[in-house]
């Protein structure tokens, strides 16, 4: 607890720093900060020099053309990149003031605080209930609390009414949209602070997409959300801040390296971006 409160102080200092550097008005405290982040796969630098905050209780969207490193950056936010043997992160990524790649940080604990929802729904081939209790179980939450947790998580993910009578059925029997909401519920059940979502709607139809977007608005009150999306309307609809990435041919390696072009309030990105590349992208004119 004391550790947390001290980190809150670091964090507000960091916010002040970013506010001037990025010329955006901070709406509130940040929960994460990226500073000069580059991610490599082996020798290949996939993204370079990303500096941006993630604000608390906001939805931050990452947009940009395919291959610009959105997923790469997102995965580095909860150290999922550690699962890729060649991946390496440079620069600093902090969560509540703590450097996530610091020597005393356990990546497993990071992932408990910073949950993830994947592009393709990936429920376990277990029952709906077991999918939800998986996280709490390994986090050592008492068994007596599971039933309440199952209900509250499924309610938060707006899927309770659809599954409450079939909690012990296989999760694989759900539709794609239901599976994705189940995955969101599963991520929520471990009570993270931050939810990372990598194109959570790209496998879904417009109705299911709409439900997940509504859901994200509700979840905002309790969580800070970072979402990668290819869908510009979606970014405009749901997010508060928006980061636009693009790729550029790297002078050293002659390979395409992703970079952050602009980070700003979403309204500004879509109405009055400061970079021409952003404007071209959001208005549908490429290059």
């Amino acid at each position, binding site marked *: 607890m004391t550790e947390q409160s001290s980190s809150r102080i670091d964090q507000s200092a960091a916010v002040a720093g970013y506010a001037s550097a990025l010329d955006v008005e901070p709406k509130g405290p940040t929960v994460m900060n990226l500073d000069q982040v580059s991610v490599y796969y082996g020798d290949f630098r996939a993204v370079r020099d990303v500096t941006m905050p993630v604000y608390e209780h906001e939805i931050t969207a990452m947009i940009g053309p395919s291959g610009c490193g959105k997923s790469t950056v997102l995965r580095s936010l*909860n150290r*999922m990149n550690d*699962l890729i*043997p060649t991946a390496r992160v440079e620069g600093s990524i902090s969560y509540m003031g703590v450097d996530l790649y610091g020597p005393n940080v356990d990546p*497993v*604990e990071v*992932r*408990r605080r910073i*949950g*993830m929802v*994947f592009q*393709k729904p*990936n*429920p*376990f*081939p*277990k*029952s709906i209930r077991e999918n939800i209790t*998986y*996280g709490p179980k*390994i*986090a050592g939450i008492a068994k007596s609390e599971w039933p309440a947790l199952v209900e509250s998580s499924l309610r938060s993910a707006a899927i309770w009414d659809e599954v409450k009578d079939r909690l012990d059925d*296989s999760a*694989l029997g759900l539709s794609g949209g239901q599976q994705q909401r189940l*995955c969101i519920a*599963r*991520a929520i059940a*471990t009570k993270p602070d931050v939810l990372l979502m990598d194109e959570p709607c790209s496998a879904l139809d417009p109705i299911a997409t709409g439900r997940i977007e509504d859901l994200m608005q509700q979840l905002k009150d309790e969580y800070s959300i970072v979402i990668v999306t290819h869908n510009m309307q979606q970014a405009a609809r749901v997010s508060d801040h928006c980061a636009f990435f693009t790729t550029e041919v790297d002078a050293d390696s002659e390979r395409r390296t992703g970079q952050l072009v602009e980070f700003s309030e979403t309204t500004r990105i879509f109405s009055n971006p400061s970079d021409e590349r952003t404007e071209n992208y959001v208005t549908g004119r490429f290059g």
Partner: protein
Amino acid sequence: MAPNPERLLRANPRRQLKERLVKALVAAAALLSVLISIAIVASLVVRALQFVTGLMAPTADTMDEATGPVSLWNLVADQWAPRFFEFGIGTLIVGSLLVTVIAMALATPIGLGAAIYLSEYADARVRRIVKPILEVLAGIPSVVLGFFALRWISPNLVQVIFPSAGGQNLLAAGLGVGLLTIPLIASISEDAMASVPDALRQASAGLGARKRRTTLSVVLPAAVSGLVAALIVAVSRAIGETMVVFLAAGASGNSAQFTANPLDRGSTMTAAMASQASGTDGTISELGFNSLFFVGFVLFVITLLLNLLADRFVRRVRQSY
């Protein structure tokens, strides 16, 4: 000129014929394999029945000076010695059971451990090197391992730990069979685990699971049918293994005393069949020769039951998902 639609759509008799020919060929292949299996089982059953009726109707040829005329009681004799009309098949069943249990006790943890290491922990380079080696190991001729069990495992392991054990014993044979099945279990289990989608591992890691938790709670359950398949193949291999037991367990002259002690010499169903078929006993009496088919039939029933059981198990585990 517009093409004539009737011509366009007309069936081509040559192609239809070819299609029918191919169908007939593959159907014949399927039929043949079924027929062969049926013929094998039928010959087993017929000879096994002949054996049983032979026991029930003793003749002058099936008379032993010491024990008198044969009867069904000879099936529960305390030894297996067809030469003396002692058909205590329990001796062989227990022998097979001992060897199989010992083999599986050795091979299951090592084989599964190796599979888990290869599929979940080893980096791609190690896997690329080790996996083919495993597959080569799986192909080691069993006579080599039998010899190894007899000349190395028994004196350097079994007899060191259990000085009372003889040079030939069921334990050494079981360990030899176990060595034989390790690569089998490792290789099939690794295939099963490698086919578990990576998305499930990521989901688990994303929820704050450590690797061992992911392996135990996600990968192994998802791979369960493949793992059970690996164990069944291994058990079938262990029950069916002949040469290692033949060499290392040491029931000479095709006779074995009943024993449940793995340190004793003994025999198994397959080893007894091999010595019966290869030795001179077969010529001694028709009854003795037919006993071979009887043992074969019992073996067949046991393996069949095993497979059915495993099938039910897999289905039950799958349904609980």
